[in-house]
């Protein structure tokens, strides 16, 4: 019988939740790495017991942990992330050049084909890769070396590379997103990169349609249609049907188009999910009601999903890494909150239940469907 494993990164450790395919009863293990920030934990698609975790602390810096038994035991791997060559500078908050400085790993993306190959998105924004299971990391510096790198600027949360989407149909193609530089695509395995921001409009930029500088919060893709991407931008929900050459807004009837997460149903490529957040100055749900919005039309037309979710006095946030789906026949949808709840729906969003509710603030949620 199928099982589901949910990997949760929080401000104070990692937690692993497991259930059978019914997804009603959950076993919780953790905290793993108690007291440390776990920005992201993710498993290899080709070896689900191979997990990678980004563990960090303001005191003691960055660690990378690896498990070969589904999170029962872990071993620290190489934690040396050194920028390739002379790091150069990007823009600082005051508009002055600022040297690139490594701070932490925001996102780990295991390869679709090799459990020893993993991509790491880091702050200050850059892309690293290991091909030896985490024993050593090397920068794919063509991204940072893109001509615009010196103009990238951090958002209030830092300048992190948070989204890494390999194209399942083309090993040379990958999409990444950076707050607040925008989104980029490589068609040559990471050697060169192209900003793909045409159609984005950001009012906070002096030039709202600039090539770089957009605060992209998250991008999602259905594996069967890698040319169709959905984006939750700082404001605006967007989609592209041509691998980022042109974006169009699909916010439609959302109560607010600010938010962080976005994801795609495992079996319906036109069904997408967001969690609207009131605004960039009020990071909580509108009206104190926690609602997921689902579109079955690839955007524009949205329906609120609130069955089982708190509908009064709810002022949590749902951060960019904190939503995922499983691939069981009835698609499961999961998200975590800064209030420490992880909510799950076993019926594609129609109804929800908290599968754990008093964790530290949730930074990331990933789901593995196990056979």
């Amino acid at each position: 019988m199928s099982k589901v494993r949910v990997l949760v990164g929080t401000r104070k450790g990692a937690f692993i939740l497991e259930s059978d395919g019914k997804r009603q009863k959950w076993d919780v293990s953790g905290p793993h790495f108690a007291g440390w920030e776990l920005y992201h934990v993710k498993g290899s698609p080709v070896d689900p017991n191979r997990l990678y975790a980004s563990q960090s602390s303001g005191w003691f810096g960055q660690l990378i942990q690896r498990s070969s038994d589904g999170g029962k035991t872990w071993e620290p791997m190489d934690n040396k992330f050194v920028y390739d060559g002379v790091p150069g500078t990007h823009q600082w908050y005051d508009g002055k050049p600022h040297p690139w400085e490594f701070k932490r790993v925001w996102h780990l993306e295991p390869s679709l084909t090799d459990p020893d190959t993993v991509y790491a998105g880091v702050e200050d924004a850059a892309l690293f890769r290991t091909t030896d299971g985490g024993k050593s990391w090397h920068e794919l510096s063509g991204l940072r070396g893109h001509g615009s790198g010196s103009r990238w600027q951090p958002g209030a949360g830092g300048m992190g590379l948070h989204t890494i989407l390999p194209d399942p149909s083309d090993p040379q193609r990958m999409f990444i997103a950076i707050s607040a530089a925008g989104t980029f695509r490589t068609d040559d395995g990471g050697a060169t990169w192209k900003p793909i921001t045409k159609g984005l409009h950001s009012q906070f930029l002096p030039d709202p349609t600039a090539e770089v500088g957009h605060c992209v919060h998250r991008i999602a893709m259905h594996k069967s249609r890698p040319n169709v991407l959905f984006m939750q931008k700082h404001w605006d929900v967007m989609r592209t049907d041509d691998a980022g050459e042109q974006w169009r807004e699909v916010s439609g009837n959302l109560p607010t188009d600010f938010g962080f997460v976005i994801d795609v149903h495992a079996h319906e490529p036109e069904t997408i999910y967001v969690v609207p957040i009131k605004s960039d100055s009020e990071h909580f749900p509108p009206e104190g009601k926690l609602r997921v919005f689902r579109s079955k039309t690839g955007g524009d037309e949205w329906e609120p999903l609130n069955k089982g979710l708190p509908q009064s006095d709810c002022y949590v946030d749902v951060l960019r890494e904190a939503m995922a789906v499983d691939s069981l026949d009835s698609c499961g949808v999961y998200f975590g909150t800064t209030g420490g709840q992880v909510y799950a729906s076993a019926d594609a969003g129609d109804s929800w239940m908290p599968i754990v509710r008093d964790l530290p603030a949730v930074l990331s949620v990933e789901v593995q469907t196990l056979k």
Partner: protein
Amino acid sequence: MVLPAHLRTLAKAGGEIQLTIAGPVTQRSILDALEARYPMLQGTIRDHVTQERRAFVRFFACQEDLSHESLDAPLPDAVASGVEPFLVVGAIAGGIY
């Protein structure tokens, strides 16, 4: 020497660590020996590249804050002889975390 709790857990080390140092006993020689025995601590106390102390890590010994002393300055005899521990301490966060 004594490590903060998080680093003891990471290194799977006990309460107090005894290190044998060949040559002058300095912050650098202690940390070199520590990281040689416990490679997983590399980058957690001092920066991988610059080898500078991380901002929120402090070094204490003999009731003195040695955090701003030269990495190559000799440590007190009491530390060198093993009478007093060299303490690696996580700085107070002020409640933000």
